[in-house]
């Protein structure tokens, strides 16, 4: 963190706009920022029943007595860590494959811990998985590489076929499901899919499937946590990416790398 206290203390956009004459120069743009962004923050009081192991220091007149009290700290529940599209077998393969693409190591968590496979599952269940905004009208003749993907399969279908192919290949070669292979074996299988020559995936190619898997894994690591990946912003923390900050006006000219506590889109919902 930079030594200079140049950032506003509360760097939410609301507070920032309120504080900064620079941002608005006394101007309210179309009434919109004034109307919505500067609305007072609603106060929400939440009572949580808690018991905890805690040291209480009591101070009678002369003597200090230490007493231990039990307290339960609630663990966060990730209700969105459930499946919208994959079956459990598909999920296990996707999770294992994503972990090899971005593995846990001494630098920090990998794709599995970050929830990338949940992200992929959720994305496949929606518009992206259904190619809702892509041109899906035939015919689908053989294309030159410069002409891009030409398949009638949706991404949902490509994943289903690709994951099955990973499973079949592993069974055939190692007599084990993909998720149960050693890391080195999984890497070997994925390399074969990336190259795409040994394995055929009907209607598409192993290379195209691997490309989608890789891209979706990276998204699952670094997208806003609301999508189900980047769990607790751990992906951003690993990368030292500050997420969703309203302003770098006071920092943009500074020399030296600045690490900030990341913010997510959720942090901006109370404006």
């Amino acid at each position, binding site marked *: 963190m930079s030594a200079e206290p140049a950032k506003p203390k509360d760097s939410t956009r609301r507070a920032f706009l309120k504080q900064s004459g620079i941002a608005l120069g006394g*101007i309210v743009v179309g009434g*919109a920022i004034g109307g919505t962004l500067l609305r007072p923050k609603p106060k929400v009081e939440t009572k949580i029943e808690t018991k905890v192991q805690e040291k209480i220091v009591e101070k009678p007149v002369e003597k200090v007595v230490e007493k231990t009290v039990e307290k339960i700290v609630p663990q966060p529940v990730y209700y969105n860590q459930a499946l919208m599209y994959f079956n459990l077998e598909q999920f296990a393969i996707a999770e294992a494959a994503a972990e090899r693409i*971005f593995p846990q190591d001494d630098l920090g968590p990998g794709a599995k811990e970050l929830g990338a496979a949940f992200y992929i599952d959720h994305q496949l269940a929606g518009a992206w998985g259904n190619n809702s905004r892509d041109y899906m009208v035939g015919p689908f003749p053989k294309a030159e590489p410069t002409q*891009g993907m030409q398949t009638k399969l949706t991404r949902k279908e490509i994943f289903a076929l690709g994951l099955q192919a990973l499973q079949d290949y592993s069974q055939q070669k190692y007599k084990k499901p993909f998720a149960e292979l050693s890391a080195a074996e999984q890497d070997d299988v994925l390399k074969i899919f990336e190259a795409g020559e040994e394995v055929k995936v009907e209607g598409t190619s192993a290379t195209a499937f691997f490309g989608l898997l890789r891209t979706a894994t*990276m998204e699952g690591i670094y997208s806003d946590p609301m*999508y189900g990946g980047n769990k607790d912003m751990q992906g951003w923390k690993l990368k030292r990416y500050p997420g969703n900050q309203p*302003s770098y006006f006071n920092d943009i000219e500074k020399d030296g790398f600045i690490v900030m506590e990341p913010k997510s889109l959720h942090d901006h919902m109370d404006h």
Partner: protein
Amino acid sequence: MATKLPKVPVLIVGMGWAGGIIASELTKAGHKVVGLERGKRMKLEDYFIMHDEVRYAMRHDLMQDLSKETVTFRNNEKMTALPMRTYGSFLPGDGLGGAGKHWNGVSFRFLPYDFEIRTKTVERYGAKKIPAGMTIQDWGIKWEQIEPYFDKFEKMAGISGDAEQNLLVGKRSSPAYPTPPMKQTPSMKLFLDATTKMGYHPYNSPSANLSEPYKNPDGIERAACQYCAYCERFGCEYGAKADPVVTVIPVAEKTGNLEIRTHANVVKVLHKGNKATGVVYINTLTGEEIEQPADLVIMTSFVLNNVKLLLLSKMGTPYDPATGRGVIGKNYAYQISGGATGYYEDKEFNTYMGAGALGICLDDFNGDNFDHTDLKFIHGGNIRHGQSGNRPIANNPVPAGTPAWGAEFKKASLKYSYRTLSVSGQGSNMPWKHHYLDLDPTYKDSYGLPLLRMTYDFEDQDREMSKFLAAKSAGILKEMGASNVAPGGELKAYNITPYQSTHNTGGVIMGADPRTSAVNNYLQMWDFENVFVVGACSFGHNSGYNPTGTVGALAYRTAEGAAKYLKQGGSLV
């Protein structure tokens, strides 16, 4: 059967930068205007939850829905064109404001050389310098004629830039930009020092992301840029980035003379003799077909759709690549890049911060600012180091030879996330006889109308220029102290898959001669005096710059021409 509405005096098709500017100018002058926009309405509040890389940068939320319409592409006439099924090399915008919402705000003026490119190239190097098949031509307008409109666009948008005239670009009637330059980051200072030492002429990249609060001549007040790094592919939550939605459109609406109809997708321009009589559009919410008669039709859709609409409406002579005759679809061009990446082993930069148009650049190798006698190309490009703000999904640079995934990739991508800088040439692109747009014989849009077909490839001219710009960029990065410099690879065949640039140009080009151009220098059609076709489709070639500043200037000129036409009628030239 279409529902026929009462006639309106002025109809604008497409409410992006060009449509917004013209609507603003005509309504201020008291003309009643109807603006048709096929997308949805947009307002500043729609930009408040923008910092979402997946929704906007990866899934293209502000871009056109390709399931309804796309283009087909082939590199040459021997290939069968196939649809661009997903994004994509370029990203046409959707909704009110069009691509003017999601641009970065880099706002240059094309060079005086550009407007007279054929004459000036022949003058300096002789006719032999222009290879057979390269169809460059003068634009039918000179610097002195177009300069006042650049000035007008820049004052409307509040462009931030240097106070002094840069000697390598066209003479400015107002030397100082309306607002001071943007802030300089440490890496921009490295570029400044290095290129000054190398004897080049660096300057702050003109920016439509305001450096300070600004009130424009229309009375529009906007806040200063916060360098939040969510610019390109995003709308600006502060209204700091000039965008039709927060500048010209509200001005036009305030007059009470503009009626905007959103979800109105024009599918045909109707005409009789040498005049358009109106348009047919489809209400995309109900499917209803509506005929809207008009005295004056101004076509301001994106480049590709302007061309498609003219071809579908059978207006102007379609371009024939076999003979080189005809004009609609002619001289399609794009943008050529050539740059380098520098890796810094001992230094990290706050490259996650930035603004779309934040950068520093030079024109020493742009246009005809340098001697091309011994070079195998003409023109060149603006060489620039920008800091638009790197986002984490897209920004995972690794040195060459690193695997694309796995433990080694993870380690290297985390190491180099903030240790790379890029310097890149935005190269011009010359038109060729065999690069063109026409209608596809096979594939149809959601209305059953043919898709636009693009026949385009990179040429040796482009390969030579790209190599040249990459070498210059690499030289600058070395001087900027990079530990390792990797020049960009050689330009291969044009591939429509990876994102490159949304600077598509040509197809309805301007000029002085009806045999070789579709519109005159007011962008009025030669064949239909009450039709103006506006946008980067008017460019005879693409320069070594971002196109929006020049589109804006041409739109202001069209607005003046349209007002003149409404008064007197007839051809304006």
